[in-house]
C-alpha cells in the first residue's frame, strides 16, 4: 500500500497543457469510478483547479501505482503519455502528505496565502467521499489537511495583506477611513483599472459612486454599472468636495488634477481627509497634491510598493505555516504508524505472550509438586500452542496487507485484538514504514521536477 501523487501545476505546465487535464465537478464521478475500478488504486481524490490538477491515490504497488494513475489521466483525456509526462510531477510516501498540506496551506499557490484553495480541496474530497473513492486513509489525510488549512489561516497572517493593486488601494483607503461603508468615491476617467478598483471599493460598502469623464456619455455608461451618478467634467472640483476617495485613470498625457485645484477643494471640506489613487500612466494628478494637509495621494508605483511589501510579509508568514505543516505531518505520521502491519503483528504476539505467561503462572501454582522437567514441558506446550495459533493468521495478515485495501485487514486485526489501547507502545517500538515508505528507486520527480527532460 502506497501513497501516490501525480499532478501538474502552474509551476510545471503552461496553460495549454493544464487545460487539457482538468476534471470539472460534473465529470468527477466518472473519473473517480474509472480510477478505482482497477486493482492498483484503492482510494483516490482528484483536485482540479485553474492552476493545478493533482491526483492523490492509495495504490497497491509503488511504480505500478504511479503508472496506473498516469495511464488513467492520459486515457481519460485521450492524451499521449509521452506528451504529458514532461509536465507531470510524481510524489510518493511522505512527500504526498507534505505536498497536500502545502497546497491546502496555500504555500504552493500562485499567490501565496490565497484563500480559495482550501475550499477547492474540500470540494475535491467531497466528490471523492460521495463517490466512494475515499477510504480510511484519505478520510484521515484530507480531514487533517483541512485542519492544516484552518490553522495556517488562523495562526498566521498569511492571507491578511493585499497582494493586488486594486486591493492595496482598498487596504490603504481603510487605513484612512477605517470602514468604507457610507463613503463616496469619485471615478475620474472610465478606464478598466479605475473600474476594477471602484468595483473592489463598492464591494467594501462604499455608499455612492460619482463618475467624471471628458466624454459624458462614457461617464453615464460606467455610472450605470455602479448605480452611481455621472457628473459633468466641468463640475469635477465642485463635486470632489463630496468625495472621500478619488480614483483617477484617464488617458490624458498631462496632469488633469493640480495642487491648486485640490487645495481649493480642501478648503470646503471641513477637515475631512481625501484619499486619491492615481493609477494612470502618465499620471493624472500632480504629485505636489500629497503635500496638502489631510490629502493622501498614491500613484501606481506607490501601490506596487505596498503589494511588494505585503508579498514579503506573506513569505515570512509562510515560514510559520511550514512549522504548522511539520506538526500536522507528525500527527498524521503517528496515526499511519499505528496502521502498519509489522507493528500490528508484533503487538498481537506481545499480547498473546502476555496472556500465555499469565495463564501459565496461574496453572503452575495449581499444579504444585511438578518437577523442573515437567514445568519446562508445560511451558513449551503453551508456547507451541500460541505460536501455531498465531502463525497462520499473522502470515495471512502480512500477505493481505500488501494487497489492495490491505490496510483494512490490519485495521480489522487491531480491532479484533483490541490493540488500539496498546497502540502507543507499538508506535514507540517501530519505525515508520508502509504508506509513507518511498519505493526502492524513487523517481527523480521527488524534488518536484517533471518526469520528462
Amino acid at each position, binding site marked *: 500500500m502506497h501513497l501516490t501523487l501525480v499532478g501538474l501545476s502552474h509551476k510545471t505546465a503552461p496553460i495549454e497543457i493544464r487545460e487539457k487535464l482538468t476534471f470539472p465537478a460534473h465529470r468527477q464521478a466518472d473519473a473517480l469510478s474509472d480510477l478505482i475500478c482497477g486493482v492498483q488504486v484503492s482510494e483516490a481524490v482528484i483536485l482540479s483547479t485553474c492552476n493545478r490538477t493533482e491526483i492523490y491515490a492509495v495504490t497497491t504497488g509503488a511504480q505500478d501505482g504511479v503508472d496506473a494513475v498516469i495511464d488513467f489521466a492520459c486515457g481519460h483525456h485521450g492524451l499521449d503519455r509521452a506528451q504529458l509526462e514532461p509536465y507531470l510531477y510524481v510524489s510518493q510516501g511522505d512527500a504526498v502528505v507534505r505536498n497536500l498540506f502545502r497546497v491546502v496551506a496555500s504555500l504552493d499557490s500562485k499567490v501565496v496565502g490565497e484563500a480559495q484553495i482550501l475550499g477547492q480541496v474540500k470540494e475535491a474530497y467531497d466528490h471523492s467521499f460521495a463517490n466512494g473513492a475515499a477510504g480510511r486513509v484519505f478520510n484521515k489525510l484530507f480531514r487533517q489537511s483541512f485542519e492544516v488549512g484552518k490553522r495556517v489561516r488562523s495562526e498566521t497572517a498569511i492571507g491578511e*495583506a493585499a497582494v493586488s493593486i486594486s486591493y492595496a488601494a482598498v487596504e490603504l483607503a*481603510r*487605513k*484612512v*477611513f477605517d470602514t468604507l461603508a457610507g463613503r463616496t468615491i469619485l471615478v475620474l476617467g472610465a478606464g478598466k483599472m479605475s473600474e476594477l478598483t471602484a468595483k473592489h471599493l463598492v464591494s467594501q460598502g462604499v455608499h455612492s459612486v460619482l463618475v467624471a469623464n471628458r466624454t459624458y456619455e462614457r461617464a453615464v455608461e460606467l455610472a450605470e454599472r455602479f448605480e452611481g451618478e455621472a457628473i459633468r467634467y466641468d463640475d469635477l472640483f465642485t463635486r470632489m468636495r463630496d468625495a472621500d476617495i478619488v480614483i483617477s485613470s484617464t488617458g490624458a498625457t498631462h496632469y488633469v488634477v493640480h495642487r491648486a485645484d485640490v487645495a481649493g477643494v480642501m478648503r470646503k471640506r471641513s*477637515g475631512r*481627509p481625501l484619499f486619491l489613487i492615481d493609477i494612470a500612466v502618465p499620471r493624472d494628478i500632480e504629485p505636489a497634491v500629497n503635500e496638502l*494637509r489631510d490629502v493622501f495621494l498614491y500613484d501606481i508605483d506607490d501601490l506596487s510598493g505596498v503589494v511588494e*511589501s*505585503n508579498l514579503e510579509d506573506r513569505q515570512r508568514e509562510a515560514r510559520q505555516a511550514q512549522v504548522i505543516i511539520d506538526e500536522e505531518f507528525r500527527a498524521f505520521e503517528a496515526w499511519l504508524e499505528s496502521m502498519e502491519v509489522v507493528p500490528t503483528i508484533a503487538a498481537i504476539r506481545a499480547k498473546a505472550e502476555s496472556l500465555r505467561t499469565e495463564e501459565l503462572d496461574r496453572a503452575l501454582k495449581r499444579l504444585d509438586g511438578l518437577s523442573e522437567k515437567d514445568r519446562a514441558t508445560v511451558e513449551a506446550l503453551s508456547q507451541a500452542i500460541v505460536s501455531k495459533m498465531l502463525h497462520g493468521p499473522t502470515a495471512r495478515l502480512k500477505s493481505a496487507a500488501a494487497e489492495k485495501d490491505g490496510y483494512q485487514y490490519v485495521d480489522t486485526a487491531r480491532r479484533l485484538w483490541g490493540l488500539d489501547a496498546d497502540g502507543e507502545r507499538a508506535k514507540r517500538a517501530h519505525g515508520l514504514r508502509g504508506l509513507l515508505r518511498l519505493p526502492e528507486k524513487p523517481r527523480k520527480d521527488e524534488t518536484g521536477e517533471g518526469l520528462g527532460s
Partner: protein
Amino acid sequence: MLVRLQGISMWLSMAALTGATVLYAYFFLSKKTLHSRYATALTGAGFVLLTASIGMYSSAAQGTRLVGPYTLVLAAWALVFVYFVVEHLVKLKVYGTVLVPVALALLVLAQILLPAAAGLKPTVEEVRLLDSWRVIVHVVLIVFANAGFAIGAAASGTYLALEAQLKRHRTTTLFKRLPSLAQTDLVARRAVGWAYPAYSAGLLLGVLRAVETDVTGWWQDPRVMLAGLVWAIFGAYLYLHYGREASGRTSAYVALAGLVFVVALAIVARTVPAGFHIFGIAG
C-alpha cells in the same frame, strides 16, 4: 499585617502589569490575538490587585492619601480603568501597548518617591484645607481627567505616526499594526470629550475650596496657572474639533501640547515648594 498585604498586592500588581506590557509588545509585533487576550487578562489582574492594594492602604491609613506620590498610584489605577472603558467601547487593543507601560511607569515612579514622602505629615494649614469632600472629589476628577487626556494624547500620537507613514507611502510594521486615522481620531475626540468636563468640574471644586478657605492669591500658584493652561488647551482642542472642524492633524498636535502641560503640571506639583498647592512635597 494589612500594610504587608498591601505591599505584596502592589508588587504583584506591578508584576502583572509588567507581564501585560511584554505581551502587548509581542502582540503589537506578531498581531496574534491570543497574546492580546493574555495581556488583557494580566492587565485585569493587575488592576484588581492594584485596587486591593489601594483599598488596604486606605484601610490601614484610615483614609486614602490624595497627595504626593500616592496620586501617581491613583493616576495609574485611573489610566488602566479608563483604558478598559475605551477598549470595551472601541475594541482597540493596540492602545494597551502604549497605556499599560505608562501605568506601570507611574507605579514604578510612585515606588521610588514613596519612601521620601512616607514621613511627611501635613501641616495644620494643610489639614484645614484638605478637610472637605470637595477636595476628595477634586482629586478624583482631576486624576480621571488626566487619564482621559493621556489616552487622547496617545491616540493623537498614533494619528500623527500613521499620517506620516501614509504621507511618505511607507508600509512598515508600525504602519500595518496601527489602527486607521478615523478610528484614532474618534478615540482621541471621545477621550478628551469625556475628560474635559471632569477636569473643568475638578478645577471648579478646587477653586471653590481655595476661595472658601480664604487662601490669598491662590490664582498665583504655579500649579493653578498650569492647570488653567491645560484647561485652555484642551478647551481649544474641543473648539477646533467641533467648532472649526479643524483637521485631525491640527487637533492631534493640540492634544499632545495639552499632555505636555499635564506632565509639566504633575512634575511641578511634586517638586516646586511654592504656592499653597504643595501637599506632599518634602521641605
